């Protein structure tokens, strides 16, 4: 892309996007809830109140009550910790298993790369649900163990993206220069490549966290890892489903919470991505006459665009 030279990108520049700012705020809120959810909750998430079943939002219960009269807001706040932490667990596993090989594969020769790629192809298609549930069959009904296969199945994505980014940056001339000067491959990786690849990994991490969170929500929805009466996002959603006739509005609340969090993560990932490409995507000055379809002054340019 000709035209403006890439703007110098700083860490602050991506905060210009309004969506990124909203996303950060949302995620900070979630983070706070993860750590302090139970204490911040206005009421005890476990208190049953038989007189206040299926209530809609009110001053006392901001998000209403569930089928046992428990405050929905408190339940969701308290349930944040488990959902978020296990999602992060899966992402961590994926990161560790995927990023290392992703970088290494560029330097370890064609056969390794070919094999790793085919392995990745196959792994990426396996549905995590089956494996997660199967693990609980073997190792007991716990979310911690259920998220391990999720993490393993996230690794291929990390692998693929890291590999692409490494390929892109390892062919730069300064890398070649470094190698010529005698630097070992490891050094090259550590000093040059890693720094350039980190932003891409950050983007991927955000997206994968969204995916992991979705997985957690779904698994808890299915009943994995839920030790009633402890609340989880998916668990709340699931019980809401059982009582749809009494409270048809109820599932929208946890659904909205899940969707907002996932949306914030995706927006963050997009903001990261756009920030890196900000210079190239800067608006080109609009020509007076759109130069598509041989309108002058593109006469000479046309020739260079011959297919």
């Amino acid at each position, binding site marked *: 892309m000709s035209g403006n030279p890439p703007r110098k990108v700083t860490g602050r520049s991506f905060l210009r996007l309004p969506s990124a700012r909203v996303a950060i705020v949302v995620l900070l809120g979630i983070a706070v809830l993860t750590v302090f959810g139970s204490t911040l909750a206005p009421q005890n998430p476990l208190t049953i109140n038989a007189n206040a079943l299926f209530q809609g939002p009110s001053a006392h219960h901001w998000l209403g009550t569930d089928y046992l009269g428990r405050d929905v807001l408190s339940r969701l706040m308290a349930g944040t910790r488990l959902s978020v932490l296990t999602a992060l667990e899966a992402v961590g596993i994926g990161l560790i298993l995927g990023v290392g090989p992703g970088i290494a594969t560029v330097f370890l020769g064609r056969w390794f790369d070919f094999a790793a790629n085919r392995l990745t192809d196959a792994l990426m298609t396996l549905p995590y649900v089956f494996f997660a549930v199967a693990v609980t069959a073997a190792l007991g009904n716990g979310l911690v163990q259920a998220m391990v296969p999720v993490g393993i199945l996230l690794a291929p994505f990390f692998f693929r993206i890291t590999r692409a980014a490494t390929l892109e940056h390892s062919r730069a001339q300064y890398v070649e220069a470094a190698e010529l000067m005698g630097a070992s491959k490891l050094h090259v990786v550590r000093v040059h490549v890693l720094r350039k690849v980190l932003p891409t990994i950050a983007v991927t991490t955000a997206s994968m966290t969204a995916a992991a969170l979705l997985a957690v929500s779904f698994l808890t929805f299915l009943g994995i890892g839920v030790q009633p009466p402890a609340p989880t996002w998916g668990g709340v959603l699931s019980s809401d489903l059982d009582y749809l006739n009494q409270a048809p509005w109820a599932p929208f609340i946890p659904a909205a919470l899940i969707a907002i969090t996932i949306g914030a993560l995706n927006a963050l990932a997009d903001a990261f991505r756009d920030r890196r490409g900000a210079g190239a995507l800067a608006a080109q000055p609009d020509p*007076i*006459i759109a130069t598509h379809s*041989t309108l002058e002054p593109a006469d000479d340019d046309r020739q260079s665009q*011959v297919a």
Partner: protein
Amino acid sequence: MTIDNLKSPDLAAPGLPPTAGAAPDTVSRPAPGTSDLLSLDDLHISVHHGAATAIRGVSLGIRRGEIVGLVGESGSGKTLTCRAALGVLPAGCTIDHGSMTFAGHDLTTLSRRGWEEVHGSHMGAVFQDPASYLNPTITVGHQLAEVLRVKLGLSRRAAHQRSVELLSAVGLHQPEHVFHQIPAELSGGMLQRVMIAIAISCDPELLVADEATTALDVTIQAEIIDLLRRLRDERGLAVLFVSHDLAVVAELCDRVVVFYAGEVVESGPAAEIIERPRHPYTRALLEVASVGDFRRRELRVIAGQPPPVGADITGCRFAGRCPVAADACRTGPIAPVTVGDQHEVRCVRAQEAWSTGELAAR
């Protein structure tokens, strides 16, 4: 009612086989003797959603069987005019004023259906970069046959056969083989011939050629020009030939229309314009192009730049660069003046005969 019946007998096509079948047309063929096939009158076109007026008061006409050349620099408006005549203006361009008629039918208010009929059956077009105007994933033969099947209702077999005939008629060797090639496998010259074949396949009366030879080798250029001339002679095809290459225009065209900065500054018979240009800009163009003068060694240029598109200039738009500009040139709009048979010039000094010396002094 076949298409052939409507052609005047002296324009029957001995060289190319008659087209079979006929598409019902709502635009009836003009009776022989009507003067203008395509007529643009006082056309004003604005671009970029009305931000600038790129074409101001352009009027021109083409008769049946006539080859008219549009010349001018890049940005002068000749391509935009063609596009308007073809009904394929880019997004954001509108015709603000003026009219276009084809065989007596108004084109400015033509519906999409109307255009679908006009295109191909009455007006064909070829452009500068033929490869980009063909679908890259489909063989050229299939694209040609498609037009025949859809517009003329030919069966698949008949369309195939006719396509091969057309490809041969435009000068392609091994037309059967070419039929099965995709655009990427053919050279520019061959592709341009294919484009011409497609454009004339339904026997239109007018062919619009927008810089059709600009991107080709000189030898191929000559062949294409020859082909166009042959088509005019054999089929009575009128050609609107847009080019910035005066040498080609001089050789091929019957009449020439010179564009500058969105206006027609001179128009008339080709021979006369080449030998006795009246507008300073035309004279300068001819000098630069050194038409007919291969021995000249110095590079001549026209000093200055054309005005930006849509710029509001009182008076002659060439005045800033004109070697003989006078105050009268800048006071108000310049109306075209007739200086000869069908020869019009938009210049207040057109009637004067300045010497070459005056121009050379600049």
